[in-house]
């Protein structure tokens, strides 16, 4: 399951630049998303940013989740930082995720980690895409849905949060 914070023009890099509000519906949405996950796959950049930020913080729901959840990090160099249960995926991201999917258990989450999300979407191993779309055009920054092959999606849900952010969930596949 890929969960991303996106601008209306599709940018997912540095969402703090266009996410100017965070309301209770967005919080409840995030809690539901991560509540179903028992593993996450992260790119190295997201890992490094988060391992420098989250340990020692206790703001629910994300801080306790990311601290305790099983983390698989795509990287070619050893991990640094203070997180337990962090594992390295060297090469073969897609195969590694396929293996994770075969285990029993909850959802596998991809948060931020643009390169990872794109590679998994391109390989057809993503089942759900959950977006929070800000009412803003970022203008610059990396887009999630660039460089992908054509994909059919099926809308599952689309609601508006009180501060005007679109919570939209898709199943990947027609």
């Amino acid at each position, binding site marked *: 399951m890929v969960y991303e914070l996106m601008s209306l023009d*599709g940018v997912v890099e540095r969402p703090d630049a266009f996410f100017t509000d965070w309301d209770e519906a967005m919080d409840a949405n995030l809690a539901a998303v991560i509540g179903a996950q028992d593993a996450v796959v992260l790119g190295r950049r997201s890992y490094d940013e988060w391992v420098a930020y989250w340990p020692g913080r206790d703001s629910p729901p994300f801080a306790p989740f990311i601290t305790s959840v099983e983390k698989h990090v795509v990287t070619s160099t050893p991990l640094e930082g203070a997180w337990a249960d962090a594992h390295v995926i060297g090469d073969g991201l897609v195969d590694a995720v396929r293996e994770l999917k075969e285990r029993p258990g909850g959802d596998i989450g991809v948060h931020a980690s643009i390169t990872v999300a794109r590679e998994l979407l391109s390989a057809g191993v993503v089942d759900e895409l959950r977006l929070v779309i800000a009412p803003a055009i970022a203008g610059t920054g990396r*887009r999630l849905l660039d460089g992908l092959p054509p994909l059919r999606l*099926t809308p599952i849900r689309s*609601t508006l949060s009180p501060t005007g952010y679109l919570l939209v969930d898709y199943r990947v596949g027609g």
Partner: protein
Amino acid sequence: MPVVVTMSITLDGVGAGRHVTLEQPFGDLPADTFYGWIEEAPEENQDAFDAIVDAGAFVMGRNMFGPITGEWTGDWRGWWGPNPPYHAPVFVLTHHPRDPLTMEGGTVFHFVTDGIEAALERARDAAGDRPVHIAGGPTTANAYLAAGLVDELLLNVNPVVVGHGLRLFDGVGALRLEQLSVRATPLVTHARYRVLREG
């Protein structure tokens, strides 16, 4: 009255393909990528289609009007048959003058050669107290957005990623928006935004 960009786009923001031809109004992407929802589920989406054409006047780019480039030759009258769905004046941006084209049902195509601001001014005058819709395509919508001339966006977002084509918002820069409404149907999400002026 508001100036509204109305576009049907894909989830990756594409509003048309490239290389429009007589056979392919949306270029190298099929029309149902963008408007399949009105063909396949007309009842649940009729309101949204009506909203697209509910304006006092329209502005559209030349590529949206037709596949002909350069001087006007022949008698091209648009993609929409003898009675287009606009039922109001439509101002077509072009570098090549042509006499107005009166269609059935109240649609009149006017050909404007002196730029996007002049076209919008004429559309505002024609619309009176009703909205002006910037009907597309993406290049025209982006020109108006970049110029700060748009008050609202009325988007129909199709659940598909196409990976290529002309993208809405390219070259527009940063804009703050306010989401006014959203309605999801199985084939498309209808969303309306107000454009806030600061970046």
